[in-house]
């Protein structure tokens, strides 16, 4: 394989992981981590200009380009945030330099795993990559070694392993369905080959396979009732990891699910995957919306909000059709950007306040105006208020559903409204009112947070036509 952008987005994180594991000194490694993430992002942007040739293992098409660019961009900004965040963790003695070295190496392993699963042209390779990404996050969630962190990591490990185990079973079943048509060997696992011959596959096998894949990868997407690992893993790990989990890893699992959905859609006799996804998405959205009211931990609050939004996204893709798919893609992008921005803010807040309990925070807009108003802006965006990007994508999801299934749209709208109430209630407690807790200075860079929020704001006001046509192409691909 010649060296091109495609191999670059895999080799850069892989090489960086090895390098970071060997180098001492957290300042240097933190900067190298940012640099490696920036290079990977630049390489992924270049995919738009020069499309590398796809082989039996790797693939680049319009669908995964969107995911890769989003993945490497948020990976880059999170690395920037992480550099300042981790510095503070060392000063307060929560992490030792040895653990930071390990953390940076694992961060790049995670980026490698996610990039690999996005460009994999082989259903087996994709599975392996997702497992790799999961294991690296398990290690990072447990890095503080407190009671809560260990419990969260253990729970995450067990549930995610079972999930990816079921996904592997589904993957094997897809191979079994493809093997009589495509023939034995490698070809029966290659996406591009599978897509051309899917109409001849055994529909019954595909049906069962999809159920396993939906349960397996659905666990990783965080769909209710398989979401139990998600709030703990978000709350107890380092905040940069919460941002990457919510903003990226959930999307990667969703991407896998979408690929299999496209495969099933090509077979006329197999079950339509849409209704299954719509049901799970709707349940997740409603369930998480009501759960928002009982949260006392700020990171858990936003973890439940992630479940709600993944529910909406899965719902949109389940509805299908050009408009709903477009809305789903837009919502996914906006959610990744907004949610990671919120976690950047929350990370800084909890470092200043020394706690994650909502009851111990208050009056942030008075004591820390930048952080406080940043949080207000982020929550306003995530709750789906105009004029920000998420309002537009949620509006598109609901209206496109109204035209086809009014009742479903009513239920979805209810979920969104309930979540809005829950989020604003908590926001009020944290951002306004009497100041509570320590009022020390903030040691953090605001750049990543405001960069994300600026993009989300821009998208709400004006979507560039190039982006719209790009998303429309992908929406058509998704069927």
């Amino acid at each position, binding site marked *: 394989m010649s060296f091109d952008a495609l191999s670059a987005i895999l080799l850069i994180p892989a090489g960086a992981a090895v390098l970071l594991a060997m180098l001492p000194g957290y300042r240097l490694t933190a900067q190298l981590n940012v640099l490696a993430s920036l290079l990977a992002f630049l390489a992924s942007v270049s995919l738009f200009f020069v499309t590398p040739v796809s082989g039996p293992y790797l693939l680049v098409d319009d669908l995964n380009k969107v995911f890769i660019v989003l993945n490497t961009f948020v990976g880059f900004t999170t690395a920037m945030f992480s550099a300042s965040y981790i510095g503070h963790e060392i000063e307060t003695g929560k992490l030792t330099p040895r653990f930071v070295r390990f953390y940076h190496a694992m961060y790049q392993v995670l980026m490698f795993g996610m990039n690999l699963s996005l460009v994999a042209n*082989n259903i*087996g*390779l994709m*599975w*392996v990559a997702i*497992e*790799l990404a999961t*294991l690296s996050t*398990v*290690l990072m969630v*447990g890095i503080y*070694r*407190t*009671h*809560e962190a*260990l*419990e*969260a*990591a*253990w729970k995450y*490990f*067990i549930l995610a*392993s*079972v999930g990816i*185990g*079921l996904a*592997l*079973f589904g993957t*094997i*079943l897809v*191979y*079994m369905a493809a*093997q*009589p048509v495509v023939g*034995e*060997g*490698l070809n*029966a*696992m290659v996406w591009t080959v599978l897509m051309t011959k899917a109409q001849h596959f*055994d529909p*019954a*096998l595909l*049906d*069962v396979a999809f159920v396993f894949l939906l349960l397996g990868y659905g666990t990783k997407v965080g769909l209710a009732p398989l979401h139990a690992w998600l709030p*703990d893993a978000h*709350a*107890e790990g380092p905040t940069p990891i919460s941002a990457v989990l919510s903003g990226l890893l959930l999307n990667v699992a969703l991407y896998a699910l979408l690929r299999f959905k496209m495969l099933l859609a090509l077979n006329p006799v197999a079950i339509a995957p849409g209704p299954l996804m719509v049901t799970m998405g709707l349940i997740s959205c409603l369930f998480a919306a009501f759960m928002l009211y009982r*949260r*006392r*931990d700020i990171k*858990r609050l936003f973890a439940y909000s992630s479940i709600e939004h993944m529910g909406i996204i899965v719902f949109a893709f389940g509805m299908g059709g050009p408009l709903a798919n477009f809305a789903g893609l837009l919502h996914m992008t906006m959610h990744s950007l907004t949610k990671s921005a919120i976690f950047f803010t929350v990370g800084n807040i909890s470092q200043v306040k020394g706690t994650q309990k909502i009851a111990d925070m208050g009056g942030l807009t008075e004591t820390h105006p930048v952080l406080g108003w940043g949080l207000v802006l982020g929550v306003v965006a995530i709750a789906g208020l105009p004029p920000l990007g998420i309002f537009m994508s949620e509006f598109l999801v609901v209206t496109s559903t109204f035209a086809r299934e009014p009742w479903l749209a009513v239920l979805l709208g209810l979920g969104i409204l309930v979540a809005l109430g829950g989020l604003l209630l908590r926001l009020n407690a944290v951002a306004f009112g009497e100041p509570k807790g320590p009022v020390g200075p903030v040691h953090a860079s605001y750049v990543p947070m405001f960069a994300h929020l600026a993009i989300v704001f821009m998208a709400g006001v004006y979507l560039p036509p190039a982006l719209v046509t790009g998303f429309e192409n992908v929406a058509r691909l998704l069927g």
Partner: protein
Amino acid sequence: MHGLTFDVAHLLAGSLVLVSFMLLYQSRLYALLNIFALHALVLAASVGWQASAQDAPHLYVTAAIALIFKAIIIPVALHRIIVKLGIHRQIENVVGVGLTMLLGIGLVALSMVVMLRVTAGADALAREDLAFALSVVLLGLLMMVTRRNAVSQVIGFMSLENGLVLAATGARGMPLVVEISVAFSVLIAFIVIGIFLFRIRERFDTVDLQALDNFRGERR
């Protein structure tokens, strides 16, 4: 694919399900480990037989991995961990053995009904293998649900992965890439588990997950 070849393959895959049942009711950790080693041994034999039956030499590698890693290295290592943690005398109360076994039987019946129905077109050996493999996977899940001890949960998880390997070998000509990576991921998973058990021990002086549950973030 008929006669003796088929019968032996059937026997081995069936034995794997049987050993899965044996795992369900073991109350002593040592006994549990020994039965798991047996589980891996049966898997290795089953994969080895498939390798000769399908004339697929790469499956011998998978069989060897199952034999060396899962039947020898992992049980020995877990054995040492148990000794180090000083929990080798512990007896885990397996509640409701009768009910668990009945549930297990139900799960096996379910997987037979599902898999045999949908694979009507595939060849007989692959059908049987998939049905047995799904049974082993579901029994592993059942074990993880019913056990409270971290070591037994890990063993439940590994028996689940054995079922997945059986399914992968049953699928004719599935490329080697996957099997090697499955083995590798088991290894990685094992390292993770090892680290975890030590960390849990470090913090709690027990590997009983009930103790972990008491530290749940929001209950306090």
